């Protein structure tokens, strides 16, 4: 394989002056671009809402209980991810897997409740095209849900089939999981803003 530590440095160990190994640097850059992506949608929200005469009362259209529950679920999954990573660093693979499964379970529950919400909307005749607010709601939470699904796939891989990578290079695998964790925390972070903006404002 071309990507070995002899060929490309700083895959496993961080470089002194930047303090980062390559993948961590890369993921922070990626997250910066994601900030801009969701940022543009938030920007659209602000413009459209500020520029409108009337805007629906968001808390009446949304079920805040489910939103709050989803917030708790995602935050809990973040804690589980950290526990998983700590266990991995301590070589406790059983614990690592257990916590990763919990993360994945939380993620699926999040999607489940999201599905419940969407279903409730559709059965009330509330579709993306019904209003600008609902269009933004579906697009922003939908895009977020796609990011959750991406995270689920990565997490399943690293908790299951991808474990062979750990046998190849232990520290590199720990780095990979850390990077996946950063992405996961970010997805959680975006949800905090989505919930605050789309449900509570």
């Amino acid at each position, binding site marked *: 394989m071309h990507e070995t530590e002899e060929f490309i440095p700083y895959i496993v160990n961080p470089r002194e002056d*930047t303090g980062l190994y390559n993948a961590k640097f890369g993921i922070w850059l990626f997250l910066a671009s994601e900030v801009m992506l969701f940022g543009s949608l938030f920007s659209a929200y602000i413009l459209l809402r500020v520029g409108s005469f009337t805007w629906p*009362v968001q808390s009446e259209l949304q079920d805040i209980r489910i939103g709050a529950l989803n*917030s708790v679920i995602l935050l809990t999954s973040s804690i589980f991810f950290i526990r998983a990573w700590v266990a991995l660093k301590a070589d406790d693979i059983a614990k690592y897997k257990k916590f990763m499964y919990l993360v994945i379970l939380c993620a699926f529950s999040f999607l489940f409740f999201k599905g419940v919400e969407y279903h409730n909307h559709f059965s009330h005749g509330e579709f993306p095209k019904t209003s600008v607010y609902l269009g933004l709601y579906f697009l922003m939470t939908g895009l977020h849900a796609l990011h959750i699904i991406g995270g689920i796939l990565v997490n399943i891989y690293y908790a299951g089939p991808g474990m062979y990578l750990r046998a190849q290079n232990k520290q590199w695998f720990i780095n990979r999981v850390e990077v996946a964790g950063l992405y996961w925390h970010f997805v959680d972070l975006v949800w905090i803003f989505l919930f605050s*903006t789309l449900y509570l404002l």
Partner: protein
Amino acid sequence: MEEHSHKDEFKRDILIYCCIIALVGVIIFISHLHLGTGGIFLIVPIACVEAGILGFYFMHLMTKKRTVHLLLLLTVIVFVTLLFWPAWDVAYSPRTPSEFTTY
């Protein structure tokens, strides 16, 4: 990088977690007060605090070197630019009421 024992860290993480959950509760409560536009100036900053706590502790931002901090600062500045021009534009454009979009 963390040299703390696992137990201390676990307690600290749980504490952070509870803080964030509590803040979520706070903004839900504020939302129920239906403060209208004023609510934004409470809810959004508190959401930022939640995000900041999550970033600093869960994403270990505080242990990152200058590189990441600078990158994030740059991103935040660009992001804020993107976010606040619409408000400014709408506030300062000459528009008659009929040109406002309606829901």
